[in-house]
């Protein structure tokens, strides 16, 4: 991860496919069914379990961490992994396991906040653009194109330069970068759902635009947005690491996986564990979000689901 480029926002492949109008017709409403199908997909199930453990770790960080993350013990510095310090210690003698555990909270919080921001703003923009079309679509989506055209790092650095570093602003910066992705995915999906007969049917009994949007269009347009959320979480965690690595994200002495990676880089030939464990944490989290995203895509893709559930139209 040297150089640590901020990953460019990736549009998940289903984004465009799911825009096809006919797909919504066979999709099923129940979450239980989704969960059951997801559980039958072993990779996704394992990924979801690992993510749940990481999330629990982040929630109960204070209780789980063997010692304070910023507890300096100079006499213990640069200890290799041992029973006392399973992940070893860093150059200030801080327990790396504790810092990885506490770093989970920082990394995931920034990731979730960033994606939540991008999801809310982007989905709203995509919803309005896709549903109303015409000039609303033109104006909103050209704006998104401009935002999208900025190199992601540059955009994030600009936001952080204006608002100063720190985890809240890092989340905002990453969130802004991902707004166009959610806007596009949502719009593509809404364009398909908008033309569905059941939307016209609701209009024919007098439903307002607001009702159409919230009760019919959004729920039916949701699957690709959910998939995109999972995939984006992976990228947001990676982006937080990259920005922290560059010194723009989380500020020392607070632990964040990206920051720990950056700090450990100087000792890579002397004490590999400094960079290795936070690096693995990033790797595992990103991998699991991606695998979960793939699993969700399989489960939420109506054609696939029709096949599995054995109930055609």
């Amino acid at each position, binding site marked *: 991860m040297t150089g640590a480029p901020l990953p460019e926002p990736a549009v998940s492949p289903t984004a465009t496919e799911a825009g096809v109008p006919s797909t919504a017709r066979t999709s*099923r409403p129940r979450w239980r069914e989704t969960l059951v199908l997801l559980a039958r997909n072993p990779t996704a199930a394992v990924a979801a379990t690992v993510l749940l453990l990481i999330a629990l770790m982040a929630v109960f960080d204070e209780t789980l961490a063997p010692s304070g993350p910023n507890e300096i013990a100079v006499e213990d510095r640069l200890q290799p992994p041992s029973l006392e310090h399973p992940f070893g210690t860093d150059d200030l003698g801080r327990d790396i396991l504790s810092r990885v555990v506490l770093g989970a909270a920082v990394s995931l919080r920034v990731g979730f906040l960033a994606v939540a921001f991008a999801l809310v703003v982007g989905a709203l923009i995509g919803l309005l653009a896709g549903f109303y079309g015409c000039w609303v679509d033109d104006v909103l989506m050209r704006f998104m194109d401009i935002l999208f055209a900025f190199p992601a790092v540059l955009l994030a650095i600009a936001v952080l330069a204006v608002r100063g570093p720190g985890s809240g602003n890092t989340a905002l910066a990453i969130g802004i970068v991902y707004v166009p992705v959610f806007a596009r995915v949502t719009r593509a999906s809404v364009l398909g759902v908008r033309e569905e*007969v*059941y939307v016209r049917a609701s209009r024919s*009994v*007098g*439903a*307002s635009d607001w009702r159409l949007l919230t009760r019919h269009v959004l729920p039916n347009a949701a699957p690709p947005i959910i998939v995109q959320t999972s995939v984006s979480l992976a990228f947001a965690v990676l982006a937080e690491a990259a920005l922290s690595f560059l010194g723009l994200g989380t500020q020392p002495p607070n632990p964040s996986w990206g920051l720990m990676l950056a700090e450990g880089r100087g000792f890579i030939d002397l004490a590999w564990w400094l960079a290795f464990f936070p690096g693995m944490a990033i790797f595992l989290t990103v991998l699991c979000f991606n695998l979960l995203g793939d699993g969700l895509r399989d489960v939420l893709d109506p054609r696939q689901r029709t096949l599995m559930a054995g109930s055609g139209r």
Partner: protein
Amino acid sequence: MADDDVLVSARGLEVHFPIRSGGMLRRTTGAVRAVDGVDLDIRRGETLGLVGESGCGKSTLGNALLRLVVPTGGSVTFDGTDVTGLDRRALRALRRRAGMVFQDPFASLDPRRTVRQTVSEPLEVHGLRSGRRERGERIAELLELVGLDPAVADRYPHEFSGGQRQRVGIARALAGEPDFLVCDEAIASLDVSVQAQVLNLLRRLQRRLGLTLLFISHDLSAVRHVSDRIAVMYLGRVVEVGPAAAVGADPQMPYTQALLSAVPVPHPSLERTRQRIVLRGDVPSPAAVPSGCRFRTRCPYAFEPCPDVDPALQPVGAPGQLAACHLHGVVGRPVRRAEEAVPAAE
């Protein structure tokens, strides 16, 4: 015909969809004339069958009558009120009084909403039976009315067959106690055995609730026996309208005759005497409607005035029968040949 007999009325109704060039400027390069000057009266309590080939604008006309598409010209009157310029409130009130049953029951129900949610939507929108219990009772009542067991209210559409789904669609359309229902090919996509059931349901409901029905179909024979009157549409225009028996037995417009000659007649004697008209060529595109009589490119009787005068509906044949054809006397609007001519008022 007394005016208060008429519930829905269209005058010179036009729905033109602009054809736009691609690119940033999106210039309008032409128009699909889906509905192009329709005059039609639908009487209180009657079933009017609207027939015509695919793409002739039947659905668009139905949508325009309910203001589900905004007409680009002409007017629609519903129970004496012009609906073209309604504000939001008035439009919502119209939606309560006029509903639609759609062709494909697999597409017209939201897959993520239960039957209860679907049927209760009109009640919620119009604030009817707002108590929880009253609303539940009303939904049960509606489901019973269309022949469904109220116990199925909490199921999702995919658990139902096509016929059952169509009943749910009908229950939704009836929830607001409408006066007028547009059934757009409402039975076309169902199994033949189910078609009869749903058709009977619609007729029973009509009698019981005093509904006015616009029954859209591409199949004249299917509509003949359920309609009081029939309107025949060709390329965006109603070209013949009249009592079902008269239009079915003695059509006055060559296009209707052609449609009927495709229908097998049960009586051998009638079959023999009937003249056969086989249509030549394809339906022209609604983006390039022929001048004068729009049927002239396929009409075996086309003669001199046909390209020059756009025929108007005129009374011919049985009482109440109207047809737009110069064979009954040249009546209509002369074609403005040069497009650069000032758009004259008639």
